[in-house]
């Protein structure tokens, strides 16, 4: 097991190098760069050149890349060109904000999806199943930011119940205030996450119903309730566990649009700001972080699967 994890991690490193390399050079190919966004047309060419060299942007691209990579390996993500802040410090400040929003929303969506998916499967083809299916179909087709606008209008403007911007009221750092700010974006994310998960649970549960053990249990006179509680739900949870691993990157980039609509000070708004300004250290840092999480998440999914399902063993071929 440990050998397997180590080998998989060893594969992650070159892939990350390729990801960063590709993005780094893609950023160099842009017809304009960060300097264009802070200089004005009435500056002299020399002035612009001085600005460019001060940021190290007149060095050859490969040198800039190596310099960046060398610092990243030491855990230094560099400095934002626009704000001069340390990116690692900025991320350390913003990452918890995103996690506090995404994690509860994802867990709620997951629990909701397991419940709805199992109920739908148990009532397969009947009105309740169709209802859940239709809700899911609408949810999948709905742009999350549109749902956010509806909620902002309804709860923010019309009813005046919840704040619609930011994370805290100025001067109020209390938990109740945070929860009030959290509510609307949280709701948007739950609605954005649960339809796909519900379908996944439902179709896994339905496919379980064709298994021999279900026939056997039925033959012994098990009721549907017993069958679902004791057998089907346990088997459905196996693939669901792997979904948790695959969801890991969402902790960073799962809420870019939702954060933007609600001006939530998380990684999503930070990334979007950086991307707009072509602030390449920021773009690279967020890409590196999220690509790492995708790969670690995939690994985690595989490992979790082995942990929960003793039938699966990682052989030498399982790479």
């Amino acid at each position: 097991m440990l050998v397997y994890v180590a080998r998989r991690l060893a594969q992650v490193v070159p892939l990350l190098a390729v990801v960063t390399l590709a993005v780094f050079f893609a950023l160099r190919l842009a017809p304009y760069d960060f300097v264009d966004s802070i200089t004005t047309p009435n500056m002299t060419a020399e002035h612009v050149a001085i600005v460019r060299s001060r940021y190290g942007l007149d060095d050859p691209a490969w040198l800039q890349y190596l310099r960046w990579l060398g610092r990243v390996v030491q855990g230094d993500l560099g400095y934002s060109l626009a704000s001069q802040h340390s990116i690692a410090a900025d991320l350390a400040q913003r990452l918890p904000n995103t996690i506090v929003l995404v994690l509860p929303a994802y867990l709620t969506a997951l629990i909701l999806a397991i419940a709805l998916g199992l109920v739908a499967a148990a009532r397969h083809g009947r009105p309740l199943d169709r209802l859940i299916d239709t809700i899911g179909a609408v949810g999948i087709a709905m742009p999350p930011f549109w749902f956010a606008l509806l909620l902002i209008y309804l709860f923010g403007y019309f009813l005046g119940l919840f704040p619609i911007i930011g994370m805290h009221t100025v001067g109020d750092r209390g938990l109740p205030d945070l929860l009030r700010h959290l509510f609307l974006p949280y709701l948007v994310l739950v609605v954005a996450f649960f339809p796909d998960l519900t379908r996944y649970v439902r179709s896994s549960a339905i496919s379980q119903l064709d298994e021999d053990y279900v026939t056997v249990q039925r033959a012994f006179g098990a009721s549907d309730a017993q069958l679902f509680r004791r057998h089907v739900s346990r088997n459905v949870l196996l693939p669901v566990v792997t979904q948790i691993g695959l969801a890991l990157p969402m902790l960073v980039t799962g809420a870019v649009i939702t954060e933007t609509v609600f001006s939530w000070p998380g990684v999503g708004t930070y990334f979007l700001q950086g991307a707009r300004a072509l602030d390449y250290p920021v773009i690279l840092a967020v890409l590196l972080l999220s690509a790492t999480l995708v790969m670690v998440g995939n690994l985690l999914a595989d490992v979790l699967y082995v942990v929960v399902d003793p039938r699966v063993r990682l052989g030498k071929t399982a790479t």
Partner: protein
Amino acid sequence: MTARPNHARGAIGVLVFLALVSLAAPLLPLDPTTIDLTRRSQAPGPAHWFGTDDLGRDYLARVVYGGRVSLLVGALAMVTATTIGTLIGLLAGLGRPWVDNLLMRLVDFLSSIPWLVLVIVASVLLRPGLIMIVAIIGGFSWMTTARLVRAEILSVKQRAYVGYAVHIGQPLPILVARHIVPAIVPVVLITATATVSAAMLTEASLSFLGLGVQAPQTSWGQLLQTAQGSLQRQPYLALIPGLAIIATVMSCNALGNSLRHTFLREAP
């Protein structure tokens, strides 16, 4: 979505209606561009069914013309992604092992960056016009198609009739045209409907973030971005384009499910 024939009929009805309105828009008495400051921000009424926006432009016309762009982007991005995905899938499925390996690593690589992040970076870099948006969305949406086409080919290759065809010495082009291509058509069609949906939602997101369709051109996502500013006074400006997106995407998905049901005899 439970795939029943009347569902598919409803979905096709919605899509045909939208396509007809979009194609016929220049013939209809609709004017999305004339600014009339005496009719700013009017509520829906007989003269302006969907009201007017803050520059006094007829909102029904804006929605119809926005839909033209949204649907066009969705359709063209789908064509781009499906073409690339099918070709890569064919190459990977039929090519030598090293080609297959290389292409699948490329798919893994592109899939290892969260998709929205990838698309945002690309659109910031390429300051998009309409063609660029299509290229970005289409160029990053082909991975699923490629994977599925490849998987389908690998399974077709195992079937006895393909084995016989190889055995009697059928040349490769004929083999591909007669046996491989027909086998992958259902997968390609089904994935294509999902790709249209995904492309339209992506265009809406990008335009909403201000990175997609730019004024004076408009799309449903761009209308939503504008509507955000007057949400408190005119919530219906946000409501309408959103409903249009949902109706279109739901119809595409229902059509895809119906195709899956028909071709693959898969239980709903």
